[in-house]
């Protein structure tokens, strides 16, 4: 018996691996024209794993103080063997992860996979999206360069507009009145402790719920299969779906490698808190639509300040979006059509405002 076989036998003896494998071989995944969207969640998970691994490597050298942060990233990029690659992949996979998370969310939305019994799966997914955006926002400041410093100033100003609790939120985020060393250590804490902890809990919950309820089939497809049961198609999770998932992961890896090779992530110029904000300060692309909306809103809309209206508007929209499974409960009625229309509008709005934000600069 080879060493590998002996190890497998030991694991099976202790943990019942054969049972798990048998379960996975028995588990099936529906096959239809929208099956490709199933891979978006897995790709997001793969990119998250890359984030964790590269993040731990960066953590070995990174120092979260205004005096050292920029220099430590500079050191990683110049002195640490393959540090440039680790940093570039960390930055690029963060952006790709947010992109795939958004794509996953919209695919779930348009395939109506959030409906009963998957309400909690949707809610845990929305929580993960917020966590992922939090990762992006907190990680952006960590290199302590000019762009990230001033973008964080602008970004943390936005929650400050929220009535009643705005001031409290601003202080909570910044650790004081302004973006200072306290903000950097706070963001570092969010980025490497609080958010990873929350992410682990919610990823576990999300996967558990996906496993519990299985892959959702779009209503139109389900109706077709119900009418003609012989047309129903499935594939085994192991090995058929897993191999395809692996292909998706390798595709993400190839894209990451290509981006790191041909568009390495720049470090920029060290932040000077006493300098005036340079022209063209803008947030990362995934906050661009909100940033542009706030910029385009007039100073006052009637008696209400424009910024306040924007922030409250986005807050309400996000709350409605999150609670979607509780008012779109099924069928193809008026509510369902309204929800689909709102989704198309939301997607078009995000794409248009993001493109506008980059074109007007």
């Amino acid at each position: 018996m080879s060493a590998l076989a002996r190890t497998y036998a030991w694991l099976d003896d202790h943990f019942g691996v054969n049972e798990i494998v048998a379960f996975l071989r028995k588990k099936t995944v529906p096959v239809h024209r929208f099956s490709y969207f199933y891979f978006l969640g897995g790709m997001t998970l793969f990119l998250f794993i890359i984030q964790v691994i590269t993040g731990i490597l960066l953590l070995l050298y990174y120092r979260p103080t205004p005096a050292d942060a920029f220099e430590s990233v500079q050191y990683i990029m110049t002195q640490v063997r393959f540090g440039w690659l680790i940093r570039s992949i960390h930055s690029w996979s963060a952006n790709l992860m947010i992109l795939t998370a958004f794509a996953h969310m919209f695919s779930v939305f348009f395939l109506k996979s959030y409906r009963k019994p998957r309400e909690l799966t949707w809610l845990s997914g929305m929580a993960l999206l917020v966590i992922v955006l939090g990762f992006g926002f907190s990680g952006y400041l960590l290199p302590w360069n000019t762009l990230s410093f001033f973008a964080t100033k602008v970004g943390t100003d936005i929650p400050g507009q929220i009535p009643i609790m705005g001031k409290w939120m601003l202080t909570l985020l910044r650790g004081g009145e302004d973006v200072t060393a306290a903000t950097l250590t706070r963001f570092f804490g969010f980025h490497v402790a609080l958010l990873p902890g929350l992410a682990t809990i919610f990823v576990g919950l999300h996967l558990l719920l996906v496993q519990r309820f299985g892959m959702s089939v779009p209503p139109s497809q389900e109706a077709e299969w119900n009418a003609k049961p012989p047309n129903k198609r499935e594939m085994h999770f192991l090995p058929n779906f897993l191999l395809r998932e692996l292909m998706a992961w390798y595709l993400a890896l190839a894209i990451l490698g290509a981006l790191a090779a041909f568009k390495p992530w720049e470090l920029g110029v060290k932040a000077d808190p006493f300098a005036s904000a340079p022209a063209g300060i803008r947030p990362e692309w995934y906050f661009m639509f909100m940033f542009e909306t706030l910029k385009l809103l007039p100073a006052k809309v009637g008696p209400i300040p424009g910024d306040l209206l924007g922030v409250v508007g986005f807050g309400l929209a996000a709350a409605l979006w999150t609670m979607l499974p509780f008012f779109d409960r099924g069928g193809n009625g008026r509510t369902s059509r309204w929800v689909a229309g709102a989704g198309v509008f939301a997607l078009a709005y995000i794409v248009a405002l993001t493109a506008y934000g980059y074109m007007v600069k």
Partner: protein
Amino acid sequence: MTTLGEGRASLCGPLIRAASLLVLGVAGTLAAAAPLHAQTKNSCLDCHSTQTGAFHMDSEEFVASIHAQKGLTCVSCHGGDSSTDEMSRAMSPAAGFRGHIERKEIPALCAKCHSDAAYMRNYNPSLRTDQFSQYQTSVHGKLFAKGDTKTAVCVDCHGVHDIQPPGDQRSRVHPLNVAQTCGRCHADAGYMKPYGINTDQLGDYSASAHHEALAVRGDLSAPTCSTCHGSHGASPPGVDSVARVCSTCHVFQAQLFDTGPHKEAFGSMGLPGCITCHSNHRIVHPTDAMIGTGQGAVCLNCHTEGDPGFVTAGALHDDLTQLDAAIARSDELLGRAERAGVEVGEAQLAQAEARNDLLKARVGIHAVRREAVQSDIDAGLKVSAAGLQAGQTAMGEVQYRRKGLLVSVVITIFVLIGLYLMIRKTESNDGR
């Protein structure tokens, strides 16, 4: 043995005496300061602020002036008695009323206080009191002494009732406002006609590097009219003194000029030092094209092809442009490497040293000798060559990284193909 009551009594005496002295001292100080600040009534303003035309007085303007702030009133200059509303008493000669002050009286009137060091010490101990004596040595003062009342007197530059200290931006003699103040007369062709002097100074100065530094960049130490011409003792610098005036700020250039052949040559030709090449009011940012034998080179104003100065000018120009181009090449390459993600901050920092050498060489050309700039040029070229080398190494690293990652991407694609083939094989075996 002293009882408590006795002790208290013995303590109270000195305490009461000390407190009394303190109260008296404070009261005395207040009483002494009172004439400077107390302004119980000013009937002049009460009346003239309601008048129109020549008799109108803007009370707000006066109240905001430095004189009013320091407690002076109309009476301080115009005499009279501002404590009464009765016009005949307020403006009576018996009360010292002098009414309108003629231009010819102004310098002496202002000097009455401003030349009195003991009096001025009460208001501003650091203020100089030689303005009037300086004025008397100025072109303005000399013309005034000859009876020319068109020439500038104190109020023309400082204002009349709205006088502000020079450090106040509202003041006409604040550094940012001096050029416009001088220009009010000196840019007025009609006004200056009798004096036969040009009126293009303000226009020229407004296009100069000095004006840009002062007005655009807000550097209040940058020169304005009074920096070179003086203020109260204003006069045009003579041929001999131009270099000394410029050297107040441009110390090294002046020292180098003094060691070079131009000093003697210019002197023998009756040419002033700096302005022969840089002009006077329209001093623009010097460029490397100013020296040499090409278009725009000021050297060609005196030198012709073949003479030693012509050869030196050409060589100096080549030295400067060679180093400038070398720095630009290194900067460009390092910039490309930086954009490609290779950290070249250290090499870029070192480039500052090369730029510093170029700056020193540009200053060094004022000696008009190649050996004066050669060491800086050589040092700069050495640093920029090292920068270029660092840039090339960095670009090599970029290529290496790209190739390495390209290989890994290709391997990943092969794995993808392998997975695809494996799926096909598995599914054909399964019959699915």
